[in-house]
């Protein structure tokens, strides 16, 4: 699986179309597609995209609700050789416009339902100039963001022949495009299909937005195994009881989601009363699973393997831990060891392997090509010497951890301003930049709260505007999941003796928060 010829994502589909042409590949929105039908539709649309001017290495965004047509569009762009970026129609157009510009997307593929939003974002990305558009099959449309002569310079191999872009919250207020090669994603997809023993009989439930890195499993591990991807209607996502019902009705056998969703399915969704009978693989990642709830799940779904997966978007899932059936909540849950072909090491601040706490470094075929900023790639990886004496290209994750002599890794926290919400990475500086860019804000600091408001994101701002006005303005520029829980207008921000904003005081860790106490009526 490693050190062989690189695998293309669209080739996984073509291979299953050869091996299992009449097997169901994809279900959703009341439609069902066999592998042969899906592969033919992808071929035809790839030809259309090429005729529209898409050349290998071009960057194409797919801005559409999660339907079979959108999956066809993603595969078709990949087959046309494009570096393909799923985009979320729930994001504000201003944010989508920044993704378009930072990644250098030259074309958007969109759907009837998302056409207005796509134009909105494209027009902003084009400094107000409307984009040309044309119709495609399956209710899809193309929008040209950049004329051929304005396309950014070509990407280096291997992404000159295509790849995948997922965006992540960056510290500058501009979402960073994480540039992955076909093989970066395929390596993980093939590993997961093998580790979970997926077969053409499996039905993989796909619940998250396609912009979320967990979904590469839903699409590409399914294609690798000839299994069926079942798209959950977006509207059910916020309702754990509906998700439980859907898992049962759709006879889902393998499911990957953030722990928040599993927690909610157990606490409000009634999964304990009616466990989905076909479910045989449960995987989670993106944040910590509440230990007591995980222990209850292990008893409830007796014999069903639970997998803890870890990995930043930059590396896909790169470690795994199969939770033992007799695991109990008093034991610390590791993120496990590297998936096949991946080297994980923990290095101290001087870059040397340590047995104590240090930064988790990831090396191997899953490590991304670089970030896209201003349309150009920037590779932040470093060469490190691992504990086996071998020097490797590695991604420094920013996650703090510890590694045991037998290679199991335990997560210990973050090195920077990054927090997680329902498994989504949020850089507090990204939120702070959005606040600071508002004309009505003089200065501001965004912090993750400690103490009674633990886990909340609060913005402290020097402003004449009300909390509601600031939140309304932020809605135009930030995805909902990134909105601060509260905006606290202050006359001045507290500073440390060196004159910097005292973030510790604001987050409530320094024990002198009394001065910043809030009138209780301020709620969001």
């Amino acid at each position, binding site marked *: 699986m490693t050190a062989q010829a690189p695998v293309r994502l669209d080739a996984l589909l073509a291979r299953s179309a050869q091996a299992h042409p009449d097997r169901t590949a994809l279900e959703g929105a009341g439609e069902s597609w066999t592998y042969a039908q899906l592969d033919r539709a992808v071929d035809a649309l790839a030809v259309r995209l090429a005729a529209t001017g898409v050349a290998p290495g071009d960057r194409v965004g797919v801005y559409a609700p999660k339907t079979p047509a959108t999956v066809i569009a993603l595969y078709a762009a990949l087959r046309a050789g494009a570096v393909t970026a799923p985009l979320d129609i*729930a994001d504000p157009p201003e944010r989508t416009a920044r993704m378009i510009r930072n990644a250098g997307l030259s074309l958007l593929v969109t759907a009837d339902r998302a056409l207005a939003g796509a134009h909105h974002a494209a027009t902003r990305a084009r400094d107000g100039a409307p984009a040309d558009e044309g119709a495609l099959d399956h209710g899809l449309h193309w929008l040209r963001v950049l004329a051929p002569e304005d396309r950014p310079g070509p990407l280096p191999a291997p992404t000159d022949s295509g790849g995948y872009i997922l965006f992540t919250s960056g510290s500058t207020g501009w979402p960073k495009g994480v540039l992955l090669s076909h093989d970066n994603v395929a390596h993980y997809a093939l590993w997961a299909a093998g580790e979970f023993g997926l077969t053409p009989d499996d039905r993989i439930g796909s619940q998250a937005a396609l912009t979320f890195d967990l979904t590469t499993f839903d699409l590409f591990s399914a294609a690798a195994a000839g299994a069926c991807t079942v798209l959950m*209607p977006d*509207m059910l996502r*916020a*309702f754990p009881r509906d998700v439980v019902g859907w898992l049962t009705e759709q006879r889902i056998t393998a499911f990957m989601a953030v722990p928040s969703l599993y927690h909610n399915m157990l606490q*409000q969704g009634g999964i304990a009363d009616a466990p989905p009978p076909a479910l045989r693989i449960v995987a989670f990642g993106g944040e910590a699973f509440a230990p007591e709830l995980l222990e209850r799940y292990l008893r409830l779904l007796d014999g069903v393997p639970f997998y803890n997966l870890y990995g930043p978007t930059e590396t896909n899932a790169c470690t795994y831990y199969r939770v033992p059936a007799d695991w109990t909540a008093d034991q610390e849950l590791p993120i496990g060891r590297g998936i096949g072909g991946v080297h994980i090491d923990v290095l101290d601040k001087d870059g040397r392997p340590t047995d104590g706490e240090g930064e988790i470094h990831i090396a191997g075929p899953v490590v991304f090509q670089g970030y896209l900023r201003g349309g150009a790639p920037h590779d932040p990886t470093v060469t490190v010497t691992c504990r086996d004496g071998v020097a490797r290209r590695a991604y420094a994750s920013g996650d703090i951890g510890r590694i045991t002599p037998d290679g199991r890794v335990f997560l210990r926290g973050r090195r920077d301003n990054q927090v997680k919400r329902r498994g989504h990475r949020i850089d507090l500086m990204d939120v702070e930049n959005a606040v600071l860019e508002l004309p009505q804000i003089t200065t501001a600091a965004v912090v993750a709260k400690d103490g009674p408001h633990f886990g909340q994101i609060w913005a402290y701002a020097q402003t004449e505007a009300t909390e509601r006005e600031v939140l*309304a303005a932020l*809605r135009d520029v930030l995805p*909902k999941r990134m909105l601060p829980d509260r905006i606290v207008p202050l006359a001045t921000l507290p500073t440390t003796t060196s004159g910097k904003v005292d973030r510790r005081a604001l987050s409530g860790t320094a024990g002198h928060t009394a001065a910043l106490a809030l009138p209780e009526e301020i709620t969001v």
Partner: protein
Amino acid sequence: MNSVEELCTLIGSRITWGRGEDASSLNADTPLLEMGLVDSLAIMEIVAALGKEAGIALPDTEIVAANFRTPKALWNAIENLSGEGRK
């Protein structure tokens, strides 16, 4: 809570409105989910506010997409609830 209009006011107060939008645009037939107006956090807040402000305890079994499609759908669910309570 006596009318679907009152329910609209409660729901509207739990939505983070963007600029140029406001709670007065909400009516009984507004497709809350289709328009992406409420997310999981807003739903939890609406359920909590129903309990706190109107004394309506919406059971977990009623917190489903079908009941949150529109304010009217939620109003019907609440009415069914109190109807059963009276029996």
